């Protein structure tokens, strides 16, 4: 089975985010980057499928030169080769624009399965994977926790609301967007990193893929979330207070 995993490099989870002068994007200088979390799960799912059924795992990413370490990390964890779409203006492209780039790079590969993370940790639109499927004319399913290969195609486990799951059968080739937490991630190893040095990373420029960069959705403004803290004192004896607290947690905070 030939699997392409589309991954994205995003600011590190612990990064201290600042908004740039124009207010349209984050200040990228001084930031450290890492592999998008749900993409890490997509890669893990692909690697486990390969370990079970054989085949090849190709990672595909679009971004500027700084994505190099993220590609090497994916190769170190076990991907066989990588395609890097060199594109410095990722931030100004919308999901359609990025999906067009990915689709153009995927087509000549003719994979059996394309996996992406459910959504990116930076923009969080959750669109790229499904648009990619549409552009490629392939069946797709989102929020996937687990993939099984069957004789005729795939059986996948989808996460629904409130702890429900759904089992779906799909033919291949297909596009799946993977939810975080379905697997246990493997750690990168020194041996993996050293072996990764000899693996193929093919770089293609965004211009070469000749896709339209004009966004249909334009980013107006980005802003840091306003921090809000409010404390409520619940009066009454412990029994009443506890009942009132449960009420609030259920219906106001909606965490129960």
């Amino acid at each position, binding site marked *: 089975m030939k699997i392409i995993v589309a991954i994205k490099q995003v600011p*590190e*989870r*612990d990064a*201290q985010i600042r908004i740039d002068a124009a207010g349209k994007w984050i200040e990228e200088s001084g930031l450290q980057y*890492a*592999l998008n979390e749900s993409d890490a799960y997509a890669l893990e799912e692909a690697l486990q499928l390969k370990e079970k059924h054989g085949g090849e795992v190709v990672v595909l990413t679009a971004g500027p030169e700084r994505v190099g370490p993220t590609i090497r990390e994916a190769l170190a964890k076990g991907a066989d080769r990588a395609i890097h779409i060199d594109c410095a203006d990722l931030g100004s492209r919308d999901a359609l624009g990025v999906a067009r780039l990915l689709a153009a790079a995927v087509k000549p590969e003719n994979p059996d399965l394309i996996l992406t993370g459910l959504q990116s940790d930076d923009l969080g639109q959750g669109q790229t994977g499904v648009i990619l499927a549409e552009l490629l004319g392939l069946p797709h399913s989102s929020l996937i926790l687990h993939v099984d290969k069957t004789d005729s195609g795939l059986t996948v486990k989808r996460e629904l609301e409130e702890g429900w799951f759904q089992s779906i059968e799909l033919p291949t080739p297909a596009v799946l967007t993977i939810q975080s937490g379905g697997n*246990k*991630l*493997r*750690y*990168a*190893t*020194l*041996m*993996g*990193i*050293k072996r990764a040095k000899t693996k193929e990373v093919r770089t293609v420029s965004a211009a070469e893929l000749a896709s339209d960069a004009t966004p249909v959705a334009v980013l107006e403004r980005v802003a840091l979330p306003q921090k809000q803290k409010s404390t409520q004192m619940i009066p009454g004896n412990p029994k009443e207070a506890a009942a009132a607290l449960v009420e609030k947690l259920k219906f106001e905070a909606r965490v129960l």
Partner: protein
Amino acid sequence: MLPLSAILAEPQSFSLAEKLLLIVLVAASVTAFWLRFRVVLAKILQSKKDASFRLFPIGKRLWDFLWEVAFQAKVIRQRPLPGLAHAFVFWGFCAFVLVTLNHFAVGLGLGFLSPTSLFGRFYFDFAAVFALACAVGILGLFIRRFLVRPKWLGQQLSYQSGFIAFLIFLLMVTYLASFFVADADPATRVLWWVHTLALLTFLPIIPHTKHLHLVLSPATVFLSRGSFSQIPPLAGDEDFGLIAGTDLTRLVSLQAFSCVECGRCTEHCPAAITGKLLNPKEIILGLRNYLNDLGPASEEPLLGKYNPQEAPFQCTTCGACEFQCPVGIEHLPILIGLRRGAVNTGTWQDDYGSKLFLALERGSNAHGLPASERDKFIEKVALPIFDGSQEYCLWLGCMGGYDPKGREIIADFAHVMNYLGTSFGVLRKEKCCGDPVRRLGNDLVFQKLAESNLEVFAQSKVKKVVSICPHCVRTIQEDWKEFGTPPPVEHHSEFLAGHANKLPAKRSGSESIVYHDPCYLGRYRNVYKQPRKVVKLAGKLVEAPRNHERSFCCGAGGGLVFLGEETGERVGQVRATELIATGATTIGTACPFCNSIFRDALAEKGAAAPQLLDIAQLTARGLPESQT
């Protein structure tokens, strides 16, 4: 009863037949020795070269050799009675070198040391004193092994050891008996031959048994890596740690063959004591068996048949084994080397371990918490940010930056530094020092963390570092050296002891404080006096039964604190119980990991538990209120 002449009797002449027999026997004995010893030597020399080995500076090597081998200081100090018995045997052997050479020379009619000459008379008497001590010593060791039978010598009785003890005893007795007979007495000849045969039997047994340490351990002590728990840098692109025979270096192989199976390592190992699978002696013997069966060219894995994979991962890296070992075996580079082999290739699969590695691959701290939590803490207690102008960079560490109790220690220590008027600041971009991944053998993540932190140090122009965590101190000061030049690092006990004269003395003299030596401060850094000095400012110092270099681990080290519940009895529980039993009203710690382990252990004891305070907290508590 025979008269004591105080002159050694020797047969005056030997027939040709006797001389020929002697030559044949000596040749046979030496050949039998060599046939086996050659194999051992070849296995050591065929092992991979130690890429980072440097013979110089030689001064420390010579000192270690003198102290540990010649003076038997470690052997005696850590186990006084059997140690002294062993030292007598060893010194007896040394004194006997000249006697033995002369003994064989006499048999060929070439004796060079006349028992009646002034020097000869002196020397033979001198050797007789040692012979007596040696005989008593070996008898004592025999009684210990076969009658007392301490459990760390192993379940099975070693009859080889018994036979060797008998031979040594026979050697000494035949020598001593020769003072009670005359030269012409036929008994003299019998004694001479019995002594000869005992020696010639003894020689070939040496390389076949643990008595190989007679020949190897002086070299092992002299050639050891030199500093405590020195983890060698990986050599080249194909070195991932100890995976197979081909990864065993000459030092490791030499050490494996040197093991004398005394079990001191196991006796002091917190894992072995609390019923874990790990037994440091078995780890070394496993390697020796591997070398004997498969040799250093084998590609068979070291873990599996010869040692279980779980065992090295139960090590707290407390270093008691390495510290105790009388023959110079360095257990930590071996145990960590085995971990490296398993982790650097991904063969070690552990949910907690993976979680820790991923947390440090992607984030900044071992707890896997967002770095913003650390910023909030810095803001909350108003810690100044290091800007290059202050004297000290206060390193928070994962415990100081994220753990509630660790934060209390930092806050109190900062309070003391303010009181002393010492300028300091904390870094915004500090990451985990890499201690847990270093000890667990994840070289990839360790290198990333060390390099990233070294870069932050350089950018911020850090000149001096002070830390509340002995693990950070050790890792920054020693382990980071592989990737750059770390600034000098002080542990806060060293800082506080250095400023003791400016700190208010005993406020509550009645309080008794039992001080727990953290492994990474004591055995790793040799810092014992300073924290005690600080404790004495706050109250009456009480010593735990196991203290200083014999201190018993809390169980947190070696990354184990991040690996979930241990099997069997908890190491921390054992130590906490021991500390409580001293009756002290307070347990004084100097390591946030020990502190966190004891916090949990004490919680189980309920209200009766003593209070638990770091030395920084003990100090802060004693500061005048007006200054706070």
